[in-house]
């Protein structure tokens, strides 16, 4: 699904996006987390990349209203979300030195397609296509299961990064409170592919095989035939066959396979994992103050929006221009008039228009995914409060 995108259109389209399409009320609802912690939204850091690559950190906002007014004014080309700090980030300079600290943040994961360049043949670098997109599907299935079943997390938001990968935002209370060490430990637990350019054999399995690895293998095995053999055609050229052969134990021809090398009997599983298992950057997950691209942010190089992914449907992409064109084309002059009227109207009119506008575009279904996610969190918070009040015998 490639349509022409020209970054030069950003200065014109972005303001429209922020004025009429960005789902501010859902966004605010998310980051407020039910208002259980005081000032949670107010102490959240945002960072903006503005026109001409100007980067500003420590942006913060007091209300949804302020957010709605500022974004169309500043027109960020890129928005990142950081941690919830001890004080308002916009005032970090006036706070006594040493007391301004990052307190909480969602546990995040970043799966980037370029980390798989050594094992995909269809594309490289920032390109993606339907053939390698399967890798993301595999990554999401494996990590989603592990984060829910092994670690007991419930509120996961998977987001398309806008260019070449996916992000996972784990939003449970417990996840947001995790220490640096805990985040690193979770990321390491989930890592199986280790080593850089110098390492040939990047996955090493030995007895006994941990249940987590078995679960992951069953996902990989489901997709491997179609993905690796057919789509990636890893046995289709001498060069790529050699790459596969390099991963086999030297004494493969002697049968049964000896145990001379560590876990020599699992070479088939190792190969599948090396070609398909998710590759995480531990550093992204470790830091409490690490900044990550915000959902619904636009990717300036592709014009695509970082949209939440519905796990039941893992295969479509969206272009910013596409949405705006849907709007512009049928009602070009009306749109301009309406736009000017908007700027003089009160917030209510703007809100109404915004709801109408994105509902007209394919953004709508992604906002629905987001809504479902927010509903689930709200229900869970309600459940927690009931539990607590039961314990305290408040009636």
């Amino acid at each position, binding site marked *: 699904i490639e349509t022409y995108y020209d970054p030069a259109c950003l200065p014109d389209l972005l303001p429209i996006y922020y004025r009429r399409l960005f789902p501010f009320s859902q966004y605010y609802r998310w980051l407020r987390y039910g208002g259980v912690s005081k000032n949670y939204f107010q102490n959240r850091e945002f960072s903006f990349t503005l026109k001409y690559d100007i980067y500003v950190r420590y942006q913060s906002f007091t209300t949804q209203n302020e957010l709605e007014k500022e974004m169309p004014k500043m027109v960020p080309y890129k928005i990142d979300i950081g941690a919830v700090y001890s004080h308002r980030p916009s005032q970090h300079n006036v706070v006594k030195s040493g007391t301004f600290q990052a307190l909480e943040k969602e546990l995040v994961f970043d799966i980037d397609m370029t980390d798989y360049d050594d094992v995909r043949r269809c594309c490289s670098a920032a390109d993606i296509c339907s053939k390698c997109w399967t890798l993301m599907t595999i990554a999401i299935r494996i990590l989603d299961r592990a984060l829910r079943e092994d670690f007991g997390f419930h509120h996961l938001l998977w987001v398309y990064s806008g260019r070449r990968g996916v992000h996972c935002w784990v939003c449970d209370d417990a996840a947001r409170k995790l220490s640096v060490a805990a985040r690193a430990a979770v990321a390491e637990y989930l890592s199986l592919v280790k080593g850089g350019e110098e390492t040939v054999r990047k996955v090493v399995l030995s007895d*006994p095989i941990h249940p987590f690895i078995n679960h992951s293998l069953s996902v990989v095995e489901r997709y491997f035939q179609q993905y690796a053999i057919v789509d990636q055609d890893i046995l289709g050229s001498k060069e790529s066959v050699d790459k596969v052969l390099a991963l086999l134990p030297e004494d493969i021809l002697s049968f049964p396979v000896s145990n001379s090398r560590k876990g020599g009997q699992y070479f088939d599983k190792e190969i599948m994992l090396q070609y398909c298992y998710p590759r995480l950057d531990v550093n992204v997950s470790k830091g409490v103050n690490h900044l990550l691209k915000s959902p619904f942010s636009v990717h300036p190089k592709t014009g695509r929006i970082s949209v939440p992914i519905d796990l039941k449907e893992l295969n479509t992409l969206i272009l910013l221009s596409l949405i705006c064109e849907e709007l512009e084309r049928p009602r070009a002059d009306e749109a301009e008039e309406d736009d000017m009227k908007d700027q003089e109207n009160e917030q209510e009119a703007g809100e109404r228009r915004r709801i109408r506008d994105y509902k007209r575009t394919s953004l709508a279904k992604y906002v629905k995914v987001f809504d479902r996610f927010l509903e689930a969190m709200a229900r869970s918070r309600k459940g927690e409060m009931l539990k607590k009040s039961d314990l305290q015998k408040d009636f």
Partner: protein
Amino acid sequence: RQFYQRARRRKKLIGNFQNDLYDQCLQFYGQPPLENISLTEFETFAVERLKLLKTVENVGVSCGKSSEQYTKKLDAEISSLNFPHRGGISEYEKRRKDHISHFILRLAYCQTEDLRRWFIQQEMDLFRYRFNCLHSKHKTDFLHKNNLKYETVSAEEKKNLKDKLIASSYGLSGTKVEEHDVYKVPFQDALDLVRTRKVYLLAGNAYIPHHEIVTIVLNDFRTRLSKALAMTARSLPAVQSDERLQPLLSHLSHAYVGQDYSIQKNIGKISLEQIDALSGKSFPLCMRHLHKALRENHHLRHGGRMQYGLFLKGIGLTLEQALQFWRSEFVKGKVDADKFDKAYAYSVRHMFGKEGKRTDYTPYSCMKVILSNPPSQGDYHGCPFRHSDPELLKQKLQNYKVSPSGINQILELVKGMHYQLACQKYFELTHNVEDAGFSLNHPNQYFTESQKLLNGGRDIKKEVDMSQRSQENPASVTHPSQANSKQAHEEMGDLDSFFQDE
């Protein structure tokens, strides 16, 4: 702060409270002691725990932490120093000592990052050892008493998860799962096991077999101790303002707790002509190095003169010999006889206690050499294992004909910052023995042990001196720990003047 107050305020102990406090062999040291003790006990307890921790360190590096030798040596040390052990009866006094001595050492070891790290490491190793010695029931008791909210998994759940548990945990068999407890712990409390994927996780809980619960407990211990030390450091100024405690505490972290070699048993037994030969055979590397530099440059700076001069005194040189030795060497250099008598002779006599304060200075221990007064350009003192660049050290050892594999072993120990063990290894290699048979703490000890080995047989003179000493103090013979404490007190006194005159 509470601790500081207790040394001053009189607090009456309630009998039952006492029994409750020390009903467990092992503790987390959560509550500071609340009683009055004498300064003597204060010192003795501290010095003895320090000895124990140093043994923990040495034995841990030289044997493996789970080897039989480790167990034997540590058991022996714990018993001989009267610390609680394996939950025997009538351990009240020992447990009290364990409790109090831990808190005293906190005061001494909270001050710098290095000291804190060392202290935490040894206390953790000691704790691990003692925890592993407990019976399984006592382990569970300990966990419950210390509010570690670790539930045990029901028999039914264990049955359902058996295969998964076996596949995730090291050393876990089907029978073990059935017979022993498995604990359910929030994964945040078991990060080491989670990170390496050595545990089964379900719904945010780690399922930990009994034999691994110690890792979790240790993490908890380390966290608590780390926090406590940081807090202690903050209230330290208040404690240090107490004149009785201040000198004791500031010396504990440098304390050498062995023989002080100020009693020259071999006085007059060494002739100056022997020194060259002795430097190659029986001197530790630092002194060999200093002697060589002196011979080559006909000069040593103050730091080198002190370290080497006191060492020579310790091996038995008389004042007259020392003066002759230094003068003859310096005169070969740029210093004429007159200048030597005017400037340098004074300081030699000073070393022997014949000038100024007339304190008889004691030769430097390894700790002192390693920790204080690092050498700079033009200096030859210090500990070569600590202060020399590894490349230069390697060359030097090659020149002294140490085998390449021996050199590697030494360099490994140096990398791990075990300088005294490196020197001990140097001893073993140059004397051609497998095991030095002693724990190196003092350059003069190196010399004595070397001579003992080369001359075969025991040093009879030493034994006579020791028995004479204890007979002089009839009161101390009845209670062995008191004799030690008297010695410790004297050692402290020496150290006192020592540090003040730098």
